[in-house]
């Protein structure tokens, strides 16, 4: 008697959930069930804390990627921004530490500034190319990612830059502030700032508007070109921050850091309901989306799935998420 209306209600609720946030809750539920069946260690508090700590880097990059996706483009060069930041900051930090061995923290700041400046340039080139020269985001960021990867290898000759000040790694790689690992602390701040930007400032509203309908945004007195450019620059800067944290973690500057970040961050965003058409996406769910990707990788590790097969699964997951995104968009446009 009561089952029929209940199941109708349930499907209605699921449908609303899908329309509002996309495919993530369903994927998350499936992953939790599957991996806890495959490995007893998966659903332990210890492991989940571990996942949270590992996911910091992808969360950060995904936040930047989200900005660009919401503006209606995408950024394939986030991995390059990470690698360049790593190499440039490591080179300048070791150089500065050698010149003034007594002022280690000054050397660290110089290194961070140099890395950040490099990423600013990467974002600026992407943004100017996409916004002002109207190059498609795909080609622009693909080209920049090749240029950046080449420069990073050229600067280091392909050899990791070692000899970083110990204080750098100790603080940003393994340190704790107020009992919280520093990377987690920094990521938390970034999440809050990004949430404020996207939901509380005109810039956020403008990015949503430009991605939703750029012509309508133009006629609503929005500087569409500047908005596009700013989103690429911010994306690159956040990637750069990730690059610094990763460099501190591995305690060397490496040109191959962040190689899979572009794909993983786009996957995290799309699974979290960010539309590839632009205009749609939320900070909160993107954080969850990145967490989900890292959790799946962790679960696959525990289930002893080889890293090669993991690549296969991740690619498949991305495509599946895009298919669901298309369905969701059609449902929004059709109304039923």
């Amino acid at each position, binding site marked *: 008697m009561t089952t029929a209306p209940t199941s109708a209600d349930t499907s209605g609720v699921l449908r609303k959930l899908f329309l509002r946030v996309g495919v993530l809750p369903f994927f998350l539920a499936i992953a939790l069930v599957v991996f806890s069946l495959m490995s007893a260690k998966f659903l332990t508090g210890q492991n989940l804390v571990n996942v949270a700590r590992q996911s910091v880097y992808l969360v950060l990059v995904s936040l930047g990627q989200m900005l660009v996706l919401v503006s209606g483009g995408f950024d394939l060069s986030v991995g390059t921004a990470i690698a360049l930041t790593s190499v440039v900051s490591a080179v300048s930090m070791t150089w500065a530490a050698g010149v003034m061995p007594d002022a280690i923290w000054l050397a660290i700041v110089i290194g961070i500034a140099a890395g950040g400046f490099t990423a600013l340039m990467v974002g600026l080139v992407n943004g100017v190319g996409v916004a002002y020269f109207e190059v498609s985001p795909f080609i622009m960021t693909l080209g920049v990612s090749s240029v950046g990867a080449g420069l990073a290898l050229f600067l280091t000759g392909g050899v990791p830059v070692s000899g970083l000040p110990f204080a750098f790694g100790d603080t940003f790689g393994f340190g704790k502030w107020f009992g919280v690992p520093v990377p987690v602390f920094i990521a938390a701040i970034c999440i809050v700032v990004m949430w404020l930007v996207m*939901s*509380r*400032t*005109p810039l956020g*509203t*403008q990015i*949503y*508007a430009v991605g*939703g*309908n750029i*012509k*309508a*945004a*133009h*006629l*609503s*007195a*929005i*500087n569409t070109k500047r908005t596009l450019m700013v989103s690429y620059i911010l994306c690159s800067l956040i990637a750069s921050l990730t690059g610094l944290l990763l460099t501190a973690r591995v305690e060397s500057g490496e040109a191959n850091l962040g190689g899979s970040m572009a794909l993983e961050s786009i996957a995290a965003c799309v699974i979290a309901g960010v*539309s590839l*058409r632009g*205009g*749609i996406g939320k900070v909160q769910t993107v954080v969850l989306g990145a967490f989900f990707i890292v959790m799946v990788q962790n679960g696959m590790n525990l289930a002893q799935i080889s890293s090669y097969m993991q690549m296969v699964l991740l690619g498949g997951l991305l495509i599946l998420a895009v298919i669901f995104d298309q369905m969701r*968009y059609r449902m*929004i*446009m*059709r*109304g039923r």
Partner: protein
Amino acid sequence: MPLLSTHGLTKDYPGVRALNAVDFDLNAGEVHVLFGENGAGKSTLISMLAGATSPSEGTIYLDGHAMNFDTVARAKSHGVYTVFQEFSLIPTLTVAENMFLGQEPRAGFLIDHGEMRRRAQEIFDTLGFALSPTAQVTSLSRAQQQMVEIAKAFHGDLKVLILDEPTASLTDREVDHLFAFIKQQKAKGVGIVYISHRMQEFARIADRVTVLRDGAKIGTVAMTDTDEAHLVEMMTGRAIAEIYPVIATTPGAVVLEIKGLSTPGVAPSSLSLRAGEVLGVAGLVGCGKSRFFRAMMGLTAHQTGTVILKGQDITHLSTREIIRRGLYYLSPDRKAEGLDLAKTSHDNLGLNVVTSGTASKRGWINWRVVRERVAEIADRVELPHDYRAKYVSQLSGGNQQKVLFGKAFGQDADVYIFDEPTVGVDMGTRAALYLKIKSLAEAGKAVVVISSDLPEAINLSHRLLVFAHGHVTAELARADATEDTVLKHFFVESEPTL
């Protein structure tokens, strides 16, 4: 027995009945004109005859047999060819390749290009069109592209030919060629359905005229029994006073002055606009009236001229800066450049509240204030409560247009330019939107209403500017602006001097 007829043909779109139980018939060897305002249902009717859309109810008969034209290809296979107003040419292919697209003459597995060119040339010779089959479509003028569209319809076994405003972009000489061709086809027994706004063409080629209004058939008259005045009355014949409000005018200072502004397709033109007045801008689709104002808004490049807003030169400013200085432009295309369809009405209205800067403090948006202002605006444009949290894509055209109007109220401008403010909107909503225009003008705003809908342009305005062929051909005071006088200025026989 008529060649082609419809019985009770009806088309429903979500929330609107575009065509209501229309009986229409076409005899062999006849030119039958469809006449009516924009949105009267002409395009809906022919798109069903062409097989581009399927009727919700009703039947189409060809030679007395009920037909099911579910695709354009099927209609064509029965000899019913349609030349749509919107071009379906592929710009990167040649003229001949376009004409035979999907039915290329073959030599084995390969396309027989020689045969294709020869047949294309044959068709051009018959039509008297001076076109080269090997020309690339991008290299052709708009008129030439139109000719290719027409030529494209003319192969195969032609029974019924449907022409949707075929002369809109043709020169007089090209029109003569087209009419000669129509007469030749008539003599062969082809039935021709012809849509046009140009009434002086009817006398030259029409046998009968069917008038549509608001999706319903008003009547069919023989051309010999009617005249232009009668047709206009049939087309617009409604209690005009009930729809169009009387807008009080107390013209204030000049707020906007345009001096000698020109843009590709529009000769240097000037106008001045006072606070509290409504300036109507009338003209056919493509006469340059919209292009002129879009150039003024900085949406397209202008070649010469100056624009002065409240004493300040805004000629070379960006669109964004022009809007911030107090000029609001309402786009004629709400889907392409007006609204974000995948967002709610709330979000769409909120955008302009946010960009106006009135709801943020030190760079932070106060969403409570935005929500209040959005609710105010939604009330003001009478957007029903149920629709406010819905995605705009799910609203009817009328309600979408209300949201678009609401965006204009999010910013406090001095001059409002409404480009086709009621396109594709039902009568009830139109009347409501006209009241919004009235309230703006009576609050001392300067308003421009650009409209291809003549009664709208005439009845809302205190002063009327008429555009034809990229020129201002008349400026009429309210008292002098009757449909007859205005229509005369639509068809001023002048070659564009561009």
